[in-house]
């Protein structure tokens, strides 16, 4: 089976007036179909840039990048992926339903079919009652759920998410994470998920890709073996904390346990 994403030696250089900035260098990464992979790292490590390259919102300077065996552009034009950003980016003049229907509408799906699919998606994200509302009538968390429903509209086999819960409060965030795990299990889509939260990455992913800045590189890949069924209970589990520690150590480059003990 073709990998959802395959990157070999991918690099990205931004040139500006003040000179060239190497945002990414020598990225080798593959994401299997149906796999949930998080990209984590400090600001400026190029995790969002990598996501944008996969989405064909930017083009790599060097290396080879394929999405389902196609170039990112072909994949974008074939609608192989759905995308959600940190900002929900809903169109304020459209109702919740019309926002979810947007990708379908842009690709000429008929009215009846659109309505059925939107209804399905809204109940998936628990917003059936708000179908006729306008975005400004919803809370930030609800808007983000609409954005996620929209990204799922065309049943993509790859979901690209750039800190979609970044603007949410901790409680909403954890609930959304649980929902996302469920939604992904149901849809069977591969996910590339950008975040700067270690617990979030651990809770959601099968693998956590740790990146370091200047230039953006992959410094470690941490497999998370917490199983496929992940409920709220997992957050209190010792195996969860162990995985969080493993990612934190990979992120800092050194074992951090000794220092942690010191602080207490």
């Amino acid at each position: 089976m073709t990998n959802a994403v395959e990157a070999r030696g991918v690099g990205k250089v931004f040139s500006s007036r003040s000179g060239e900035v190497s945002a990414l260098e020598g990225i080798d990464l593959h994401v299997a179909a149906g796999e949930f992979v998080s990209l984590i790292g400090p600001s400026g490590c190029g995790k969002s840039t990598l996501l944008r390259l996969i989405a064909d919102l930017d083009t790599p300077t060097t290396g080879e990048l394929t999405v389902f065996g196609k170039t990112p552009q072909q994949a974008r034009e074939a609608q192989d992926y759905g995308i959600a950003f940190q900002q929900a980016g809903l169109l304020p003049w459209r109702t919740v339903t019309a926002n979810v229907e947007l990708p379908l509408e842009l690709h000429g799906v008929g009215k009846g079919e659109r309505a059925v699919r939107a209804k399905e998606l809204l109940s998936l994200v628990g917003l059936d009652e708000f179908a006729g509302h306008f975005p400004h009538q919803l809370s930030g968390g609800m808007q983000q759920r609409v954005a996620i429903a929209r990204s799922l509209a065309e049943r993509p086999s790859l979901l690209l998410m750039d800190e979609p819960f970044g603007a949410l409060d901790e409680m909403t965030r954890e609930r959304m994470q649980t929902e996302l795990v469920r939604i992904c299990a149901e849809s069977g889509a591969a996910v590339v998920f950008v975040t700067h939260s270690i617990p979030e990455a651990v809770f959601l992913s099968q693998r956590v890709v740790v990146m370091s800045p200047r230039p953006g590189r992959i410094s470690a890949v941490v497999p998370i073996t917490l199983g496929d069924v992940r409920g709220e209970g997992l957050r209190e589990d010792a195996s969860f904390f162990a995985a969080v520690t493993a990612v934190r150590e990979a992120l800092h480059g050194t074992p951090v346990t000794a220092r942690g003990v010191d602080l207490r």
Partner: protein
Amino acid sequence: MTDLATTLAPERTAPVPVRPRERSTARRRILVGVLAVLLLAALWELVKVVVPDAGGHLGEASVLPRTDDLAMPHVWDIVERVLQPETSATGSPTVLGAMLSACWFTLRVALAGWLVGSVGGLLLAALMQRWQLAEHALVPWVVLSQTVPLIALAPLVVGWGGRIHIGAFEWQRWMSVALIASYLAFFPVTIGALRGFQSPPAAQVELFRAQAATWNRTMLSLRLPASVPYLLPALRLGAATAVVGAIVAEVSTGTKGGIGRLIISYAQSASGDPAKPWAAIAAAALLGLLAAGLVSLLGLGLGRYRYAEVR
């Protein structure tokens, strides 16, 4: 963002729903408008009372205009004059009648000009949105166009128009006036539309790109709806400037039948009949308000797009 948007316009405001305050305040807005007119009339009379007839002087220099009945007739004299016949000739229509028919003429010409200018402005803005090169190339000309005095343009337009005969179509004088009005109206529409087309945030633009939406589709489903809050005030402003343009054009092309001509001919009787020219000036101002008001009716059906109107 573009240079133009940042230089010519204030910061974009955050989206704030405007709908709830719409209907309940419509009556109050009319009331405030009427009060403003009454206040203006009261101020006028106050100036007449306070400032001496010969005007205010500071040493030798005159700092306030004369306020005798010849320079500033009483408001009620102006109103009274409006209801009297235009001239002493028998069968002469009242000033009001003459002004109404003149306003009707000018309004139609101005709206024709507004329509042409708005369509042109929208197309120009779309062109500039499509190709950044076009924006860089055209913006200086768009700005420069407004620095050319209309009075200089008027005879040229009339001259060119006079040479146009296409089959049965013959260029009319009022078309020149409308064209000159459109020249003034297109500017705010171009600027407003361009700002509006460029207003969607990156997340929305990239969403459309991620959906592989074409430029046309993005324009239709994203940029055009997003531009409504910018476009409505621009169209309103365009309507007011179209009226000004039409009046100036009527005067400088010598077109008969409109309020511009009336202002000139009434001004000639200022020394003997001072209330008459003021009546024409008031009518011209009211006409501009009327045109802008008519255009703002466009916004009635667009409530959901006016989530963040830039007023």
